[in-house]
Protein backbone atom coordinates (compact mmCIF):
# COMPACT_ATOMS: atom_id res chain seq x y z
CA UNK A 1 0.00 0.00 0.00
CA UNK A 2 2.92 2.40 0.59
CA UNK A 3 4.69 2.07 -2.71
CA UNK A 4 7.32 4.70 -2.03
CA UNK A 5 8.49 2.87 1.07
CA UNK A 6 10.81 -0.09 1.30
CA UNK A 7 8.20 -2.67 2.16
CA UNK A 8 8.35 -5.23 4.94
CA UNK A 9 10.09 -8.31 3.70
CA UNK A 10 12.24 -6.42 1.24
CA UNK A 11 16.00 -6.49 1.39
CA UNK A 12 16.28 -3.97 4.21
CA UNK A 13 17.51 -4.13 7.75
CA UNK A 14 14.57 -3.17 9.95
CA UNK A 15 11.13 -4.46 9.07
CA UNK A 16 8.09 -3.52 11.09
CA UNK A 17 4.58 -4.79 10.49
CA UNK A 18 2.54 -4.69 13.67
CA UNK A 19 -0.86 -4.03 15.17
CA UNK A 20 -1.68 -3.15 18.76
CA UNK A 21 -4.95 -2.08 20.33
CA UNK A 22 -4.52 1.11 22.36
CA UNK A 23 -7.11 2.94 24.47
CA UNK A 24 -8.41 5.19 21.69
CA UNK A 25 -7.49 3.35 18.50
CA UNK A 26 -5.61 0.44 17.03
CA UNK A 27 -2.00 1.19 16.15
CA UNK A 28 -1.16 -0.22 12.72
CA UNK A 29 2.24 0.32 11.20
CA UNK A 30 4.11 -1.34 8.38
CA UNK A 31 7.35 0.13 7.17
CA UNK A 32 11.01 -0.64 6.80
CA UNK A 33 14.26 1.21 7.38
CA UNK A 34 17.54 0.67 5.58
CA UNK A 35 21.00 0.82 7.14
CA UNK A 36 22.47 4.31 7.20
CA UNK A 37 19.04 5.88 6.81
CA UNK A 38 16.94 7.82 9.25
CA UNK A 39 13.22 7.24 9.27
CA UNK A 40 11.43 10.10 10.96
CA UNK A 41 8.12 9.27 12.58
CA UNK A 42 6.00 12.39 12.90
CA UNK A 43 2.53 12.99 14.21
CA UNK A 44 0.58 14.79 16.90
CA UNK A 45 0.69 13.86 20.56
CA UNK A 46 -1.08 10.59 21.25
CA UNK A 47 -0.75 9.34 17.66
CA UNK A 48 1.14 6.23 18.81
CA UNK A 49 4.70 7.32 17.98
CA UNK A 50 6.27 6.46 21.32
CA UNK A 51 4.28 3.22 21.51
CA UNK A 52 5.75 2.25 18.15
CA UNK A 53 9.28 2.86 19.45
CA UNK A 54 8.56 0.83 22.57
CA UNK A 55 7.29 -2.04 20.45
CA UNK A 56 10.42 -2.01 18.30
CA UNK A 57 12.59 -1.90 21.44
CA UNK A 58 10.71 -4.84 22.94
CA UNK A 59 9.57 -2.80 25.94
CA UNK A 60 6.00 -3.67 24.95
CA UNK A 61 4.58 -6.41 22.77
CA UNK A 62 2.18 -5.92 19.85
CA UNK A 63 -1.05 -7.89 19.53
CA UNK A 64 -0.15 -9.07 16.05
CA UNK A 65 2.67 -8.88 13.59
CA UNK A 66 6.42 -9.06 13.28
CA UNK A 67 9.47 -6.92 13.86
CA UNK A 68 12.74 -8.13 12.44
CA UNK A 69 16.23 -6.82 12.01
CA UNK A 70 18.37 -8.06 9.17
CA UNK A 71 16.09 -11.03 8.71
CA UNK A 72 16.17 -12.08 12.36
CA UNK A 73 12.73 -11.96 13.96
CA UNK A 74 12.75 -9.98 17.19
CA UNK A 75 9.00 -10.14 17.54
CA UNK A 76 6.77 -12.64 15.79
CA UNK A 77 3.50 -12.97 17.63
CA UNK A 78 2.11 -15.77 15.46
CA UNK A 79 5.27 -17.83 15.96
CA UNK A 80 5.32 -16.90 19.67
CA UNK A 81 8.77 -15.49 19.24
CA UNK A 82 9.77 -12.52 21.36
CA UNK A 83 13.39 -11.55 21.85
CA UNK A 84 13.65 -9.67 25.18
CA UNK A 85 14.87 -6.08 25.10
CA UNK A 86 18.28 -6.82 26.61
CA UNK A 87 19.05 -9.22 23.77
CA UNK A 88 18.12 -6.70 21.05
CA UNK A 89 21.23 -4.71 20.32
CA UNK A 90 19.66 -1.28 20.25
CA UNK A 91 20.45 2.23 21.32
CA UNK A 92 17.54 4.26 22.66
CA UNK A 93 17.45 7.92 23.60
CA UNK A 94 14.38 9.19 25.41
CA UNK A 95 13.09 12.75 25.55
CA UNK A 96 13.72 13.30 29.25
CA UNK A 97 17.34 12.07 29.22
CA UNK A 98 17.23 9.69 32.18
CA UNK A 99 20.68 8.66 33.41
CA UNK A 100 21.70 6.37 36.23
CA UNK A 101 22.03 8.77 39.16
CA UNK A 102 24.55 6.67 41.10
CA UNK A 103 27.04 6.52 38.22
CA UNK A 104 29.38 9.15 36.79
CA UNK A 105 29.01 10.35 33.22
CA UNK A 106 31.80 8.01 32.11
CA UNK A 107 30.22 5.04 33.94
CA UNK A 108 26.82 5.86 32.45
CA UNK A 109 28.27 5.83 28.95
CA UNK A 110 30.15 2.60 29.55
CA UNK A 111 27.18 0.83 31.19
CA UNK A 112 26.12 -1.08 28.08
CA UNK A 113 29.34 -0.82 26.09
CA UNK A 114 31.02 -4.04 24.96
CA UNK A 115 34.39 -2.43 25.81
CA UNK A 116 35.76 0.91 26.96
CA UNK A 117 37.44 1.89 23.71
CA UNK A 118 34.56 4.05 22.44
CA UNK A 119 33.86 5.96 25.62
CA UNK A 120 36.46 8.74 25.44
CA UNK A 121 36.13 9.33 21.66
CA UNK A 122 32.35 9.56 22.01
CA UNK A 123 32.62 12.00 24.91
CA UNK A 124 34.98 14.16 22.85
CA UNK A 125 32.69 14.03 19.82
CA UNK A 126 29.71 15.12 21.90
CA UNK A 127 31.70 17.78 23.76
CA UNK A 128 31.40 16.34 27.25
CA UNK A 129 34.96 15.12 27.82
CA UNK A 130 35.41 17.41 30.80
CA UNK A 131 32.34 15.91 32.52
CA UNK A 132 33.65 12.36 32.75
CA UNK A 133 33.69 12.17 36.55
CA UNK A 134 30.59 14.26 37.21
CA UNK A 135 27.29 12.82 38.39
CA UNK A 136 24.12 13.36 36.35
CA UNK A 137 22.59 15.62 39.00
CA UNK A 138 25.48 18.06 38.63
CA UNK A 139 25.25 18.62 34.87
CA UNK A 140 22.74 20.50 32.72
CA UNK A 141 19.87 19.02 30.75
CA UNK A 142 21.71 19.49 27.48
CA UNK A 143 24.79 17.76 28.87
CA UNK A 144 22.62 14.93 30.14
CA UNK A 145 21.16 14.43 26.69
CA UNK A 146 24.62 14.44 25.11
CA UNK A 147 25.56 11.78 27.65
CA UNK A 148 22.43 9.81 26.75
CA UNK A 149 23.44 9.87 23.08
CA UNK A 150 26.95 8.66 23.98
CA UNK A 151 25.43 5.94 26.16
CA UNK A 152 23.25 4.71 23.32
CA UNK A 153 26.06 4.77 20.76
CA UNK A 154 28.68 3.18 23.06
CA UNK A 155 26.60 0.01 22.97
CA UNK A 156 27.53 -0.28 19.27
CA UNK A 157 23.85 -0.79 18.44
CA UNK A 158 22.44 -2.45 15.35
CA UNK A 159 19.48 -0.06 15.51
CA UNK A 160 19.17 3.44 16.97
CA UNK A 161 15.82 4.61 18.34
CA UNK A 162 15.34 8.28 19.19
CA UNK A 163 12.15 9.25 21.01
CA UNK A 164 11.85 13.04 20.69
CA UNK A 165 15.42 13.50 21.90
CA UNK A 166 15.65 17.21 21.07
CA UNK A 167 12.30 18.50 22.22
CA UNK A 168 13.35 19.47 25.76
CA UNK A 169 16.66 21.06 24.78
CA UNK A 170 17.82 24.63 24.40
CA UNK A 171 18.28 25.95 20.86
CA UNK A 172 22.08 25.73 20.90
CA UNK A 173 22.24 22.12 22.10
CA UNK A 174 19.43 21.12 19.76
CA UNK A 175 21.17 22.48 16.67
CA UNK A 176 24.50 20.96 17.79
CA UNK A 177 22.98 17.50 18.25
CA UNK A 178 20.94 17.74 15.05
CA UNK A 179 24.07 18.57 13.06
CA UNK A 180 25.99 15.79 14.78
CA UNK A 181 23.24 13.28 14.08
CA UNK A 182 23.12 14.28 10.41
CA UNK A 183 26.89 13.80 10.25
CA UNK A 184 26.90 10.48 12.11
CA UNK A 185 23.95 8.97 10.24
CA UNK A 186 25.84 7.59 7.22
CA UNK A 187 28.90 6.74 9.31
CA UNK A 188 26.94 4.60 11.73
CA UNK A 189 25.49 2.57 8.89
CA UNK A 190 22.54 1.34 10.93
CA UNK A 191 18.81 2.05 10.68
CA UNK A 192 17.72 5.02 12.77
CA UNK A 193 14.15 5.61 13.88
CA UNK A 194 13.58 9.19 15.01
CA UNK A 195 10.28 10.13 16.62
CA UNK A 196 9.48 13.81 16.54
CA UNK A 197 6.55 16.17 16.35
CA UNK A 198 8.73 18.78 14.66
CA UNK A 199 8.09 18.50 10.95
CA UNK A 200 11.03 20.73 10.04
CA UNK A 201 13.34 18.49 12.04
CA UNK A 202 11.89 15.41 10.36
CA UNK A 203 12.37 16.95 6.95
CA UNK A 204 15.92 18.04 7.69
CA UNK A 205 17.14 14.75 9.17
CA UNK A 206 14.89 12.11 7.69
CA UNK A 207 15.59 10.05 4.60
CA UNK A 208 12.03 8.87 4.97
CA UNK A 209 9.10 10.15 6.92
CA UNK A 210 6.31 8.12 8.44
CA UNK A 211 3.38 10.22 9.59
CA UNK A 212 1.21 8.59 12.21
CA UNK A 213 -2.35 9.72 12.65
CA UNK A 214 -4.57 7.98 15.18
CA UNK A 215 -2.33 4.96 15.03
CA UNK A 216 -2.31 4.66 11.24
CA UNK A 217 0.33 5.68 8.75
CA UNK A 218 -1.13 8.63 6.91
CA UNK A 219 -0.69 7.95 3.16
CA UNK A 220 -0.50 11.60 2.19
CA UNK A 221 2.69 12.02 4.19
CA UNK A 222 4.59 9.15 2.74
CA UNK A 223 6.38 11.03 0.00
CA UNK A 224 8.80 13.70 1.11
CA UNK A 225 7.92 15.80 -1.94
CA UNK A 226 4.39 16.18 -0.67
CA UNK A 227 5.33 17.51 2.76
CA UNK A 228 2.90 20.11 4.06
CA UNK A 229 2.37 21.83 7.40
CA UNK A 230 1.27 19.30 10.01
CA UNK A 231 -2.46 19.09 9.50
CA UNK A 232 -3.36 15.67 10.77
CA UNK A 233 -7.07 15.71 10.07
CA UNK A 234 -8.25 12.72 8.04
CA UNK A 235 -9.70 15.09 5.49
CA UNK A 236 -6.27 16.09 4.21
CA UNK A 237 -6.17 15.04 0.62
CA UNK A 238 -3.42 12.81 -0.65
CA UNK A 239 -1.31 14.52 -3.25
Amino acid sequence: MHSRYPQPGANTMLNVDIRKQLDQFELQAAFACRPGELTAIVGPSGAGKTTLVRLIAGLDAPDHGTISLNGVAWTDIDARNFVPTHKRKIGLVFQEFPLFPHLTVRQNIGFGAPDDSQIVPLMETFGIGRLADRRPDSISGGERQRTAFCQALARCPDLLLLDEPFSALDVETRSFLRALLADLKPKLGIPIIHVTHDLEEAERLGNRIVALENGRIAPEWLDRQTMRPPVFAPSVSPV
Partner: protein
Amino acid sequence: MDFFRILVDPQTSAPLWLTLKTLAAAGALHLAFGVLLGYYLTSGTGFLRSATDFLVTLPLVFPPIATGFILLMLLGRSGPLSRILPVDLIFSFPGVVLASFVAGMPLMVKPVEAALRGDVKRLAEISHVLGKNRWQTFWLVLLPTIRRNVAAGWFLALGRSLGEVGITLMLGGNIIGKTNTLSLEIYNAVFSGEFERALVLSAIIGAFSLSIFIALKRLSAV
Protein backbone atom coordinates in the same frame (compact mmCIF):
# COMPACT_ATOMS: atom_id res chain seq x y z
CA MET B 1 18.21 6.35 91.05
CA ASP B 2 21.39 4.42 90.27
CA PHE B 3 21.16 4.20 86.49
CA PHE B 4 24.32 2.15 85.91
CA ARG B 5 23.61 -0.33 88.72
CA ILE B 6 20.21 -1.04 87.16
CA LEU B 7 21.75 -1.17 83.68
CA VAL B 8 24.32 -3.87 84.57
CA ASP B 9 21.80 -5.85 86.59
CA PRO B 10 21.21 -9.16 84.74
CA GLN B 11 17.47 -8.45 84.92
CA THR B 12 18.13 -5.47 82.65
CA SER B 13 21.19 -6.53 80.67
CA ALA B 14 19.72 -9.92 79.66
CA PRO B 15 16.66 -8.40 77.91
CA LEU B 16 18.96 -5.78 76.36
CA TRP B 17 21.26 -8.45 74.94
CA LEU B 18 18.28 -10.50 73.75
CA THR B 19 16.81 -7.44 72.03
CA LEU B 20 20.11 -6.66 70.30
CA LYS B 21 20.37 -10.24 69.04
CA THR B 22 16.75 -10.12 67.89
CA LEU B 23 17.24 -6.82 66.06
CA ALA B 24 20.37 -8.16 64.35
CA ALA B 25 18.59 -11.29 63.14
CA ALA B 26 15.33 -9.57 62.18
CA GLY B 27 17.25 -6.71 60.54
CA ALA B 28 19.18 -9.15 58.35
CA LEU B 29 15.92 -10.87 57.39
CA HIS B 30 14.30 -7.52 56.61
CA LEU B 31 17.14 -6.60 54.29
CA ALA B 32 17.14 -9.96 52.53
CA PHE B 33 13.41 -10.52 52.15
CA GLY B 34 12.08 -6.96 52.31
CA VAL B 35 13.89 -5.79 49.18
CA LEU B 36 13.05 -8.92 47.24
CA LEU B 37 9.39 -8.80 48.30
CA GLY B 38 9.18 -5.12 47.37
CA TYR B 39 10.61 -5.96 43.96
CA TYR B 40 8.22 -8.89 43.55
CA LEU B 41 5.20 -6.72 44.44
CA THR B 42 6.09 -4.28 41.64
CA SER B 43 6.80 -6.90 39.01
CA GLY B 44 4.56 -9.84 39.92
CA THR B 45 0.99 -10.32 38.77
CA GLY B 46 -2.03 -12.43 39.61
CA PHE B 47 -3.36 -14.05 42.74
CA LEU B 48 0.02 -14.90 44.29
CA ARG B 49 1.11 -11.26 44.11
CA SER B 50 -2.17 -10.06 45.64
CA ALA B 51 -1.95 -12.67 48.40
CA THR B 52 1.64 -11.67 49.15
CA ASP B 53 0.66 -8.00 49.25
CA PHE B 54 -2.16 -8.82 51.65
CA LEU B 55 0.05 -10.85 53.98
CA VAL B 56 2.82 -8.24 53.98
CA THR B 57 0.39 -5.39 54.70
CA LEU B 58 -1.63 -7.29 57.31
CA PRO B 59 0.56 -6.46 60.35
CA LEU B 60 0.00 -2.76 59.62
CA VAL B 61 -3.77 -2.96 59.88
CA PHE B 62 -4.40 -6.00 62.05
CA PRO B 63 -3.91 -5.87 65.85
CA PRO B 64 -0.49 -7.33 66.76
CA ILE B 65 -1.92 -9.54 69.50
CA ALA B 66 -4.36 -11.06 67.00
CA THR B 67 -1.59 -11.49 64.41
CA GLY B 68 0.44 -13.25 67.09
CA PHE B 69 -2.46 -15.47 67.96
CA ILE B 70 -2.96 -16.54 64.33
CA LEU B 71 0.76 -17.28 64.01
CA LEU B 72 0.58 -19.26 67.27
CA MET B 73 -2.27 -21.34 65.88
CA LEU B 74 -0.38 -21.95 62.64
CA LEU B 75 3.07 -22.59 64.10
CA GLY B 76 2.20 -24.04 67.52
CA ARG B 77 2.90 -27.66 68.34
CA SER B 78 -0.48 -28.77 67.00
CA GLY B 79 -0.54 -26.19 64.20
CA PRO B 80 -0.58 -27.20 60.53
CA LEU B 81 2.81 -25.66 59.79
CA SER B 82 4.68 -26.98 62.83
CA ARG B 83 5.55 -30.31 61.21
CA ILE B 84 7.32 -28.79 58.24
CA LEU B 85 9.41 -26.35 60.27
CA PRO B 86 13.00 -27.39 61.03
CA VAL B 87 13.05 -25.53 64.38
CA ASP B 88 10.65 -25.14 67.26
CA LEU B 89 9.53 -21.52 66.93
CA ILE B 90 7.11 -21.18 69.78
CA PHE B 91 8.38 -19.77 73.11
CA SER B 92 11.94 -19.64 71.81
CA PHE B 93 14.42 -17.11 70.41
CA PRO B 94 13.49 -17.94 66.78
CA GLY B 95 9.88 -17.15 67.70
CA VAL B 96 10.92 -13.74 69.03
CA VAL B 97 12.87 -13.10 65.82
CA LEU B 98 9.88 -14.14 63.72
CA ALA B 99 7.64 -11.77 65.68
CA SER B 100 10.03 -8.86 65.09
CA PHE B 101 10.38 -9.79 61.44
CA VAL B 102 6.62 -9.95 60.83
CA ALA B 103 5.96 -6.70 62.71
CA GLY B 104 8.61 -4.73 60.83
CA MET B 105 8.09 -6.26 57.40
CA PRO B 106 5.44 -3.87 56.01
CA LEU B 107 7.52 -0.85 56.98
CA MET B 108 10.44 -2.32 55.05
CA VAL B 109 8.54 -3.54 52.00
CA LYS B 110 6.20 -0.61 51.36
CA PRO B 111 8.88 2.11 50.95
CA VAL B 112 10.84 -0.20 48.65
CA GLU B 113 7.72 -0.98 46.63
CA ALA B 114 6.80 2.71 46.36
CA ALA B 115 10.33 3.62 45.25
CA LEU B 116 10.35 0.90 42.61
CA ARG B 117 7.03 2.14 41.21
CA GLY B 118 8.43 5.63 40.62
CA ASP B 119 10.85 7.03 38.07
CA VAL B 120 13.22 4.09 38.45
CA LYS B 121 11.01 2.10 36.09
CA ARG B 122 12.35 4.21 33.23
CA LEU B 123 15.91 3.57 34.45
CA ALA B 124 15.17 -0.16 34.44
CA GLU B 125 14.02 0.13 30.83
CA ILE B 126 17.23 1.95 29.90
CA SER B 127 19.20 -0.80 31.59
CA HIS B 128 17.36 -3.47 29.58
CA VAL B 129 17.99 -1.50 26.40
CA LEU B 130 21.67 -1.39 27.33
CA GLY B 131 21.80 -5.16 27.48
CA LYS B 132 21.21 -5.99 31.14
CA ASN B 133 18.70 -8.66 32.12
CA ARG B 134 16.24 -8.32 34.99
CA TRP B 135 18.59 -9.69 37.63
CA GLN B 136 21.53 -7.52 36.49
CA THR B 137 19.21 -4.52 36.34
CA PHE B 138 18.03 -5.18 39.89
CA TRP B 139 21.58 -5.31 41.31
CA LEU B 140 23.27 -2.71 39.09
CA VAL B 141 20.52 -0.12 38.73
CA LEU B 142 17.46 -0.56 40.92
CA LEU B 143 19.10 -1.36 44.24
CA PRO B 144 21.74 1.40 44.04
CA THR B 145 19.11 3.91 42.92
CA ILE B 146 16.68 3.17 45.75
CA ARG B 147 19.32 2.55 48.42
CA ARG B 148 18.13 5.48 50.54
CA ASN B 149 14.56 4.20 50.43
CA VAL B 150 15.85 0.77 51.42
CA ALA B 151 17.81 2.26 54.31
CA ALA B 152 14.84 4.36 55.44
CA GLY B 153 12.53 1.33 55.32
CA TRP B 154 15.10 -0.71 57.19
CA PHE B 155 15.38 1.82 60.02
CA LEU B 156 11.59 2.08 60.26
CA ALA B 157 11.34 -1.71 60.40
CA LEU B 158 14.00 -1.83 63.10
CA GLY B 159 12.11 0.75 65.11
CA ARG B 160 8.90 -1.24 64.81
CA SER B 161 10.74 -4.45 65.74
CA LEU B 162 12.25 -2.74 68.75
CA GLY B 163 8.86 -1.75 70.12
CA GLU B 164 7.10 -4.99 69.22
CA VAL B 165 5.06 -6.49 72.10
CA GLY B 166 1.85 -8.17 70.93
CA ILE B 167 3.20 -10.76 68.48
CA THR B 168 6.28 -11.36 70.66
CA LEU B 169 4.04 -12.04 73.64
CA MET B 170 2.13 -14.70 71.71
CA LEU B 171 5.07 -16.36 69.95
CA GLY B 172 7.74 -15.83 72.60
CA GLY B 173 5.66 -16.14 75.72
CA ASN B 174 7.53 -13.47 77.77
CA ILE B 175 9.65 -16.12 79.50
CA ILE B 176 12.06 -14.40 81.90
CA GLY B 177 15.67 -14.87 80.82
CA LYS B 178 14.64 -16.44 77.52
CA THR B 179 12.11 -14.41 75.49
CA ASN B 180 11.58 -11.23 77.48
CA THR B 181 12.70 -8.44 75.15
CA LEU B 182 13.20 -4.85 76.35
CA SER B 183 9.64 -3.84 75.53
CA LEU B 184 8.17 -6.80 77.38
CA GLU B 185 10.54 -6.24 80.28
CA ILE B 186 9.17 -2.72 80.74
CA TYR B 187 5.76 -4.30 81.22
CA ASN B 188 7.24 -6.87 83.62
CA ALA B 189 9.02 -4.17 85.64
CA VAL B 190 5.90 -2.02 85.93
CA PHE B 191 3.81 -5.07 86.80
CA SER B 192 6.17 -5.91 89.68
CA GLY B 193 6.37 -2.29 90.87
CA GLU B 194 9.99 -1.67 89.74
CA PHE B 195 9.37 1.75 88.28
CA GLU B 196 13.02 2.84 88.35
CA ARG B 197 14.01 -0.20 86.28
CA ALA B 198 11.11 0.47 83.91
CA LEU B 199 12.43 4.01 83.54
CA VAL B 200 15.96 2.79 82.70
CA LEU B 201 14.58 0.30 80.19
CA SER B 202 12.47 3.03 78.63
CA ALA B 203 15.52 5.29 78.43
CA ILE B 204 17.45 2.58 76.59
CA ILE B 205 14.62 2.14 74.09
CA GLY B 206 14.36 5.92 73.84
CA ALA B 207 18.08 6.12 72.93
CA PHE B 208 17.56 3.48 70.23
CA SER B 209 14.54 5.34 68.88
CA LEU B 210 16.41 8.65 68.86
CA SER B 211 19.26 7.04 66.93
CA ILE B 212 16.80 5.69 64.37
CA PHE B 213 15.12 9.11 64.09
CA ILE B 214 18.48 10.82 63.50
CA ALA B 215 19.40 8.20 60.89
CA LEU B 216 16.10 8.77 59.08
CA LYS B 217 16.56 12.55 59.17
CA ARG B 218 20.07 12.21 57.76
CA LEU B 219 18.79 9.94 55.00
CA SER B 220 16.10 12.40 54.00
CA ALA B 221 18.57 15.31 54.12
CA VAL B 222 21.19 13.71 51.85
